């Protein structure tokens, strides 16, 4: 299947870039992620046969950006030595680490796509039906995933609060 990249970008590029900007909050990173989204599309040409390519591109952009955010949080990079001298960075480091660990703990036992489902529902505000369409699952499947996630989150928060009490 031949893909006209220029045409594809002209149609969907702005949407993908806006999505990446929204998630990554950085123009350069968003631009880079956007290009990766189109590279993924070229690699998975056959998936583009659907009636609405925007759905696939939007989901791909969300996934790529969420993975990048997760990667950056795990491997915090410093671009130069001045960053490490930033007091706020040092002060907030522990708090961020704690919050990140909690999120990682919550999502660890769930499927990779649950992160996307949770984001689309809780952050983007899609209904269960809309999420189901985006991720190609049944509504009951999405509901079940979110219910299990909620259970894990409640348990993790309880444990966290108990840890604090005993400390």
């Amino acid at each position, binding site marked *: 299947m031949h893909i006209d990249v220029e045409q594809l970008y002209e149609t*969907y590029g702005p949407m993908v870039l806006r999505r990446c900007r929204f998630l990554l909050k950085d123009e350069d990173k968003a631009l880079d992620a956007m290009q990766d989204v189109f590279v993924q599309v070229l690699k998975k040409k056959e998936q583009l046969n659907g009636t*609405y390519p925007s759905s696939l591109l939007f989901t791909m952009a969300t996934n790529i950006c969420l993975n990048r955010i997760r990667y950056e949080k795990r491997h*915090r*990079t*410093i671009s*130069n030595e001045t960053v*490490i001298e930033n007091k706020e960075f*040092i002060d907030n480091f522990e708090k961020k680490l704690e919050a990140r660990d909690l999120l990682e703990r919550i999502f660890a036992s769930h499927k990779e796509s649950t992160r996307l489902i949770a984001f689309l529902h809780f952050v983007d*505000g*899609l209904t269960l039906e809309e999420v189901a369409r985006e991720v190609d699952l049944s509504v009951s499947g999405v509901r079940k995933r979110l219910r299990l996630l909620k259970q894990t989150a409640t348990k993790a928060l309880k444990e966290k609060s108990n840890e604090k009490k005993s400390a």
Partner: protein
Amino acid sequence: MKRKVPDVLLERLLLNELPKDKARQVLENLKKERGGMDRLENLRKSNRKILRKYPAPLMASGIKKRYKEQKRQNFLFKIKRYFTARPVPAPAFGLALALIIFIIFPQLLQRFPVDEGIRIKGGTELGIYLKTGEKEIKLRPNDRVKQGDIVQLTYKAGDAGFGVIFSIDGRESVTLHYPASRKDPPRLEPGKKQILKEAFQLDDAPQYEHFFFVASEKKIDAREVLGQASRLRRTPEKIKTEFNRLFKKIIVIELRLNKE
């Protein structure tokens, strides 16, 4: 409270990629939403702005270039994996040899220039910072530190793909700093300088704290590195020479701090 029309639905409405019923419903909701129709118009404006700033011919060429580069990398990776993951059948040996000599080896040479036959070059760095109140001070070899000081380590992989960071103190204790556990694969993060997750506080061990960064283009085993470090813990000054003898194609960066 009526929910705001999600961005994704707005985008798809503009692209005319919603089923008819859904499109009608979204448009109705948008009309009811305060400033809803403005959102749609803003999206149109944003489209024009983005395409002006990042024109399609330019972006398409960048995307194609990136796609080709990734395809080439995957191809090389598959060849490498094929011949390292299973016994090579005799007829394939000639082909493998030709590939290695004419394709893979020249590329590896380009990526990892060989120095004196055993070391790799290319910006591998170890950074040690002392946290003092509001400031972080970069420590140099033989700088003086004391019990209770908080130290933060950073590294830059350069051309190395794997690495182990450890230290030996005046009590001859070996401490692993990277990877987090000796069982973890010591894969280094490429690119920018990486800050290790945890800073640590120096204890009351006397005389010195000697740090080592053992980096390599090839996979190394943290357990093996630590085993050898433990064997040589009484003479850390000999570790660099000994490691270069024991391990192939590694680079050892060391930094000794003196204790007050």
